[in-house]
């Protein structure tokens, strides 16, 4: 018998109210609105408190960077979490249950190149591979692999739009909201890879052992976000 991955150091889970990981950053405001809509009081989180953990009547809310949500949920340090599909796609090896599309925070993951510049197609034809800068190296690699295209993926941490401007890369894979940043940097979308929205994920054990509470929360969130 050999189930799944085997972690060496594991965090024990506390009991009590379900613990929900709430993403700070772009999804923060809408996440709080949705929680308010299902009757979870988020007033305390909206203040300028430096706290990271908040207790409400029903849930314990833990705030963190969106990209940390899968880590906490996989380990069971949070029972449930909300984060973007872009994060889940990039951390696809983390084992969590993806339960619900919350439908807000919509952005597009795209392949973009310089406007009017046929360099992307040309380098692929002449040099064998495009150089692609991205903050999402695993998502980008999977995309090119599935599309059967050759690309050398270069991971950068900061403004990825810079890379094609100064010749680090021929194009970029990035998350685009309005497209204004692309526009301002003379870049244009060549291909949409997927649409990312906020998702509800659950720890594997919490999904089983607290099934009724989890299902109830899923239904209420579905009602609040699928109107």
């Amino acid at each position, binding site marked *: *018998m*050999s*189930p*799944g*991955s*085997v*972690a*060496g*150091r*594991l*965090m*024990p*889970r506390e*009991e009590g109210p379900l613990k929900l990981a709430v993403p700070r950053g772009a999804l923060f405001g809408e996440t709080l609105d949705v929680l308010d809509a299902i009757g979870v009081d988020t007033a305390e989180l909206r203040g300028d408190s430096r706290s990271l953990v908040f207790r409400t009547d029903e849930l314990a809310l833990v705030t963190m960077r969106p990209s940390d949500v899968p880590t906490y949920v*996989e*380990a*069971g*340090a949070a029972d449930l979490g909300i984060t973007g599909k872009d994060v889940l796609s990039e951390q*696809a*090896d983390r*084992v*969590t*249950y*993806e*339960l*619900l*599309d919350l439908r807000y925070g919509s952005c597009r993951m795209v392949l973009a190149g310089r406007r009017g510049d046929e360099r992307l197609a040309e380098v692929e034809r002449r040099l064998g591979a495009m150089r692609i800068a991205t903050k999402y190296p695993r998502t980008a690699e999977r995309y090119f692999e599935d599309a059967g295209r050759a690309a050398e993926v270069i991971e950068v941490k900061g403004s990825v739009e810079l890379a094609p401007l100064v010749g680090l890369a021929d194009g970029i894979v990035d998350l685009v909201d309005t497209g204004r940043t692309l526009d301002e940097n003379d870049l244009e979308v060549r291909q949409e890879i997927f649409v990312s929205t906020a*998702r509800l994920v659950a*720890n*594997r*054990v*919490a999904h*089983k*052992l607290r*099934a*009724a509470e989890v*299902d109830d929360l899923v239904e209420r969130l579905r009602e609040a976000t699928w109107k």
Partner: protein
Amino acid sequence: MTHPPIPPGTRDILADEMRELRALEDALRGAFERHGYGEVATPAIEYHEVLARGDDRGAPSAYRFFDESGELLALRSDMTVPIARLVASRFAGEEPPFRFAYLGTAFRAVRPQRGQAREFRQAGIELIGVEAPEGTAEVIEVLAAALDAAGLGRAVIGLGDADLYRQLLDELQIAGDRREAILGRLAAHDLVGLEGAVDAVDGLDPRARETLLRLPGLRGDRSVLERAHELGGDAVERATARLQATYDELVRRGVADRVQLDLGLLRDLGYYTGAIVEVYDPALGHVLGGGGRYDELVGRFGRDLPAVGFALYTERLHIAQAEEERLGKEGS
């Protein structure tokens, strides 16, 4: 001077922990023995070709090397395949059933910076030569006893069927790429993606759609089977018949209350053929172990026998044990 390193994912166990691990393993061994499962040991290294027979994906071991005469050897990645090999060779002339217990280490590849173990301890049993549902129920009864012996009275055994969803797709005549896409999303625990994959099937009637989407979320007591039948009618009734039979046998043996039926349970190993189990404790966010039926595996080594077993991750049990102890102290 720098300290001499050990490979990531391996560790030294010192006396305090070892004492507790031994006590835990003794408790498990005792539970296995009381149910007629004698302990066996097999080598940590086997011929790669032999282990590969047990693994459909052709990657039975992360660690392979050559011996002095050029044979390809491998470190075992679980204990089930070596025991299937043992039965087919050392017990070739004997009458089944065979009952074995084991406590040993197995080896797995790790991904960097995930705190994963390359070498980990497992404790489990294999029952070979007894069909479902009797054999399955017997093994679950021993599993419950082992968890009790480890002091994990709150642990829950999730029970599902490895073929249930596949059978349902057969009943609904969904084949080819669509079928693979659906199974792929399910294996990734991606219920959002599952909806997309189901909606990509042309001409699916609304009731079948509802069944495919809601079945994997059904988990709980025996009412789960009734709800499934309401949802999908005869097709689901046929697909869950085997699970129902196993559950009835568990009720007869008086261990059904330790079991959570879970129609969404899937296992990632190629050799499972029917009932599958996973073990959870409320104190820990990770699965403690699992197992199931593997009625075709022993046959790959030349002896066609039905089989079922489970393995617990001893180190995880130990963490859960320590945590239950702490919660108990706080509670009192």
